[in-house]
């Protein structure tokens, strides 16, 4: 993810190029929102901070919050999806009834156009219902609001990276597990293996 964030800002505007003029404002919003979040991440990775960088950081975070509604559809959870599915079955049923009542009055080409328009209408309706139920209430988004204060108290965030103990998994546990007999009593084996290796290396 560290590498992908580097390319993300290049990829998103490139793939949103073109499109109808009606789509332009919403595309611009999406690009700006992505930019704000990536910018915030880049500021958070600074090795030292002062008041100016902290205010930039807070500003990027504020900008993200004003623009985040663009991505509301991606936040639709299980409940919103179930509701949208119920709505879809209802709309499809309605459409079938409509079709049967005035099936004879239309020529085939006109009918096809009508059906396409209806499908678009239905998918739009479903999206709207999903957006209504979706929200951004998850803990990780809230944690960001504490970062500025944390940096002021304890210093730059890079020192708290979890990569150190992710690395320790490899030397301490995975090697021991690979050397064990993978049976039920592998735990003591992992521990003894680890302590012996540690003794030798020290």
């Amino acid at each position, binding site marked *: 993810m560290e590498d992908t964030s580097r390319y993300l800002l290049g990829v998103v505007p490139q*793939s949103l190029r073109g499109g109808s003029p009606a789509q332009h404002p919403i*595309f611009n919003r999406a690009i700006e929102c992505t930019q704000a979040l990536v910018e915030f991440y880049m500021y958070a990775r600074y090795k030292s901070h002062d008041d100016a960088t902290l205010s930039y950081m807070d500003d990027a975070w504020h900008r993200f919050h004003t623009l985040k509604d663009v991505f509301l559809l991606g936040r639709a959870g299980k409940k919103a999806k179930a509701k949208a599915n119920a709505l879809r079955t209802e709309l499809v049923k309605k459409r079938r009834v409509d079709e049967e009542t005035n099936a004879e009055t239309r020529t085939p080409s006109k009918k096809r156009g009508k059906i396409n328009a209806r499908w678009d209408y239905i998918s739009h309706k479903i999206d709207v219902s999903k957006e209504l139920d979706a929200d951004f209430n998850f803990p990780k988004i809230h944690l960001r609001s504490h970062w500025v204060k944390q940096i002021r108290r304890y210093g730059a965030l890079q020192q708290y990276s979890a990569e150190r103990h992710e690395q320790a998994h490899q030397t301490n546990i995975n090697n021991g597990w690979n050397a064990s007999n993978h049976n039920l009593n592998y735990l003591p084996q992992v521990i003894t293996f680890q302590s012996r290796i540690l003794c030798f290396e020290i």
Partner: protein
Amino acid sequence: MLIAVKATLRLGDTLVPLIFMSDGTHLLNFAGDKKEWPVYMTIGNLSSKICQMPLTHTVVMVALLPIPIKNCKIPRKRLDEQRRTNREVLNDVLRRVLQPLIFKQNPNAESGCYNVLCADGNFRRCKPVLAAWLADCPEYSDLHHLERHVCSWCVCPKNQLGDYVPSDKQHPRRHHNEYRTLSDANTKAANAELSSRHVHRGFNVFRHIPCIVRDLRKTDLLHTMQIGMLDHLQKWIFHFMKTHKGLDKYNAIWLSVPA
């Protein structure tokens, strides 16, 4: 916290800030999904140039705990009971691991100081203090006896987690000592108060160790940003592209990015 402790030290004493880390790791996919939950320890006195090198063994494993099996298909009531038992067991195990830090139960340590044999052959009086515990989001709620999906720094209502919080209008902070007295009281009003703040009732080790429990949590860039927030962003962009029919183009551009 550390500054306050530093003021109580005598001449020649050494302050040892202990940094604990824990993270689940899985060893095997099939044959019963073997998973372990190691707890590592390191100290803050080491220079960062040394402790970032993986081969120097600065990170020492102090406990290797098994992860309870996920019970999805049992009834709700039994599931809650099982979770409560899991919490109790976890806290009991952690109490044994962190025993030397709970000074009241440990008569060997006078005022929390230990005589430690150092590498130069001399003994030094050291005072260990629990300074930080690095873990990922759900583990904090387990360790701090909180419900899942709440903030462990402040009392923020669940339906306002996604709002922007200006720096001068922060939510009230959590006070774990207060939770301890409420949990010990075990009256109806106290329990209602606890559940309104999304806190579980019962014994919690961290509330018995002299430290500020709220400050044990440190912001961890890897977990909260790289595999947390940016991962979410990726998912949102995917949905956005899908609704605006640009997914093929998006994928094609990703393919052309040099690896």
